[in-house]
């Protein structure tokens, strides 16, 4: 992921947390029962627009940034985690994508703004699978598209003069063959 640069210590820490979680399970003794209990467990997340959402632990587990805290505080049900960079709308989209096991069809229904916002959120929450899924989805959306489409997609102002752009297009004319309609 982008500039994550996890220190080995951080990774070690996470491993110990994971072990703790596993051990917690083992104490219960009955694996299937423990699994069931954990499945039902929810974590409260407060989004940027002030909405408190109860999110299943299985989904929160993919959010490495929160996972670190959960492990460290030996959380119970009262645990509340603020995610100030993610709106409730985007968190709902993320939940849908994770529940839908990263189905390409689901990504196709997302708007351009949603795609971008989910990528930023996935980066913030450190959700590796989601991040890769959305980055690939965006790459797929733009790869056969025109220059104008990409400017529009990312909100980029064209600062070339007409002559400059015409010259650059001429030099790379081969790269403009086989472009899809916007």
């Amino acid at each position, binding site marked *: *992921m*982008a*500039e994550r640069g996890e220190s080995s210590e951080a990774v070690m820490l996470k491993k110990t947390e994971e072990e703790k979680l596993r051990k917690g399970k083992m104490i219960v003794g009955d694996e299937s029962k423990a699994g069931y209990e954990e499945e039902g467990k929810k974590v409260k997340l407060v989004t940027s627009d002030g909405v408190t959402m109860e999110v299943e632990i299985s989904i929160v587990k993919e959010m490495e940034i929160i996972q670190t805290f959960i492990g460290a505080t030996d959380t119970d049900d009262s645990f509340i985690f603020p995610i100030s960079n993610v709106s409730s709308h985007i968190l709902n989209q993320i939940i849908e994508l994770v529940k839908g096991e990263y189905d390409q069809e689901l990504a196709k229904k997302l708007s351009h703004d949603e795609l*971008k916002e989910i*990528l*930023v959120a996935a*980066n913030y929450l450190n959700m590796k699978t989601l*991040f890769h899924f959305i*980055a*690939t989805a*965006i*790459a797929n959306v*733009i*790869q*056969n*598209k*025109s*220059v104008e489409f*990409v*400017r529009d997609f*990312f*909100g*980029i*102002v*064209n*600062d*070339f003069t007409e002559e*400059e*752009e015409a*010259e*650059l*297009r001429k*030099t*790379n004319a*081969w*790269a*403009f063959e086989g*472009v899809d309609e916007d």
Partner: protein
Amino acid sequence: MASPKRETDGNDGVSDGAGAEVAHGGAATGIAATSASSTMPDDLMIEILSRVPVKALMRFRCVSKYWNSFVFDPNLVKLHLQRSPRDKPILYTLSDYGEYDDDAHYLHCSSTQSLLENPNSVVGIDDDGVPVFANYDIVGVCNGLVCLSRIHTNLDEIWVRFWNPATRLSSEESPSCYIECGCANMAFGHDASTDTYKVVAAVLSDAKTHKIELIVHNLGDDCWREIRTTDADFPSEFRQTKGVFLNGTLNWVTVLGTGNSRSLVDFCFDLASETYTCFQLPNDVGEGFSELGAFGGCLCLSHIYHRESFAFWQMKEFGVYQSWTMLMNISYNYFEFPRYLIPRPLCLSEDGNILILVCHAEYQLVWCNRRHCQIEHFEIPHKWVSLKSTDYVQSLVLPYPTT
């Protein structure tokens, strides 16, 4: 003695359509934007663009002035190279073979699977071909970058240039170096420790004494450097014209020693330390035609025994003599081409059971299946196939240094 090459040639070596843009191309700079997009941080943009094919990224250079150079941001180039699908790793040239024609070479790439399933597909994709610079020879290919060389018509000077066929960008000509009798055994590779592309040449510096010199040119440098060698452990003869890049080393079949102690060895040059070692070739490889190649990520050796049989070896573990394994040994009786012709490997199946050979003069592909002891011949009329790499990837790697 050597007249300047530009005057005598009257041709800067660029064939039509091969290299549209040379060296530092791009639009003029103005008041520069400081990021690729106001809505997306550059590090995330790099993550997205590292998943986009090279051709689209070349188009997106027109998005803005920032994007024009952002596409070649070193972090993006590196990440893109790591992510690029290695689905068509076999790079080869096709040329129309006509007796009186100038040879026009076109680069093509293919997957191992499609060649094994349908060997005829080697010529079935004409429109994908990218024309190669006229009058240049391909030294080697590494990380999507092609090293081209050209020998002066007087045979006393050689120079190189670098070319990325995916971006269609190319460098200017390197400085030339003096050679005797047009004799230069070259190879091209990447030194990952310093992220430097290097071309190494074994050149005859004195024809009378048969003295061979080892010289190296780094991409972007304006010189050739001489590598210090000692007579005792240095080959008396380089048998292979173009060396093979593998595991950060360049490898050639060479002759070590004189008289009774003469033996064929792999001259292995480490690009990071710029030192060399000679590896023994399989025990029973004596005189005859020998050539090293890289197949399945391993160093491989083709050897023709007295024009009677073709043997194909693989060094399973790099640098370990005991790991040389003979994969095939085929008698010429099974080949439909005459004994004076030399087949060259084009493609090896993953399990090492099927090997496709190219036999130039008869434009034949020979499909050899070890498991079923089966040999088939395919005619590929009027086309000349020449393998250039088994590890090709479309990349953004620049053929000239970033400023």
